[in-house]
């Protein structure tokens, strides 16, 4: 292996914006997101796939960004925690739920929980109930050393309530002109 590593130029599409990065093949996706794209919302904990802090969405599905190389991400759409809120700044239901339920303390693990839960919510129709057992299964692959998980599990249910409320409002708004 030569002292100068071969570099690869990759187009990374993150949160709807595509940017080129030039990286060696061994650059973890997590590091490319943090260091090359300077999106430091994605946190790096264990770097071997156990803690879940670095979870991002790859084409909508949660994956560990420390268990992928940046060169593998071309052609995929990545969503990080920075991409969860609406463009106008309105928080994603799971972000609002974490605030409501005090689902975080130090916040280190939070981005991984938020992305993981945001993807899991999409499996449920607004109005459907998520049981506590299902909520625990959803967050079972993420470690938190502060909260003891109780409020995180509550936040999953609360996030689904918020989604349901928002869906109802959207329906009301859409119905309003016709009602007049």
């Amino acid at each position: 292996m030569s002292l100068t590593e071969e570099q690869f130029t990759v187009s990374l599409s993150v949160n709807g914006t595509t940017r080129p990065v030039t990286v060696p093949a061994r650059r973890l996706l997590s590091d490319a997101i943090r260091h090359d794209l300077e999106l430091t919302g994605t946190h790096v904990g264990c770097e071997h796939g156990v803690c879940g802090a670095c979870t991002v969405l790859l084409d909508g599905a949660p994956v560990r960004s420390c268990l992928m190389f940046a060169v593998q991400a071309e052609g995929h759409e990545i969503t990080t925690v920075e991409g969860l809120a609406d463009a106008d700044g309105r928080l994603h239901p799971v972000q609002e739920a974490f605030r409501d339920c005090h689902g975080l303390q130090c916040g280190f693990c939070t981005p991984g929980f938020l992305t993981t839960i945001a993807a899991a919510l999409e499996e449920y129709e607004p109005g459907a109930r998520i049981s506590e057992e299902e909520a625990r299964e959803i967050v079972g692959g993420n470690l938190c050393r502060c909260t003891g998980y109780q409020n995180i599990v509550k936040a999953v249910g609360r996030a689904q309530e918020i989604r349901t409320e928002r869906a109802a409002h959207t329906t009301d708004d859409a119905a309003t002109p016709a009602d007049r």
Partner: protein
Amino acid sequence: MKPPPFGYAAPSSLEEALAVLAELGHDAKVLAGGQSLIPLLSMRLTAPHTLVDINRIPGLADISVTADGSVVVGALVRHAELLADESARSAHPLLRRATGQVAHPAIRNRGTTCGSVAHADPSGEMTAILAITGGSVQVASAGGGHRDVSAADFFLGPLESSLRPDELALSVRFGAPGERTGSAFLELSRRRGDYAMCGAAVLVTLDEDAAVSDVRAAYLSVGPVPEVHDLSAAVAGQPYASADWVAAGALAASLVEPEGDLHASADYRRRLVAVLTERALPRAAADAVARTQRAASCH
């Protein structure tokens, strides 16, 4: 915790990939889902000269159910895709049960079933299911070489398979469950989704009078390779509803030679073999009855 430098090849065809593997031999390592390989790289437990990333090769992501009911899973099928596949789910309940226990959803979204087998980790769920179902691995090499390696010949030791350096595992075939056969899968880990301290995949076959005729079990995390044990001697001929499953568990515990590590001592693992066996077998027997009834009502 960063991988060491490596060369990177991302072939866009199978022929190209096999040519690279033939050229590099021991210096190359295949990258599919990467959920086992990348941690090994990051912990510097392995340092291949070149990674051959097969993710851009078309035609390797198929799931099919053969006429005899076997399930064939291509090299790029993710665990989550196998779990969601209706035909595989209904054809092979044991495979479905075990796949749902592989790590966490985020790992299953990326990790491949075929890669789990090729990784040959005796604590992996897929290795045990391949072994107990008498499955096989379909292997290709440059120049049109193909061979079909049975599970019994595939696993040589922990993280060691009979896959040669110039070969690529194209697919794995999980053998069909037989008639009047039910299955169960149980594993125990300190945290759900972690590597099991012990796991048991069991198959129970009943005869036409609902007596036990054949009992087999494969265990995770108790030996250097996935072990399949015949437990029929403890319960054969007994009516399934009153069979002495505890005796079958005791027989299983006498057949395994687990080693201890920081997660569980050898004695504890042996105890888990007995307990998981006696819990899993009646479930598998009940499953056999239900499947037999369903099969009868379909004819």
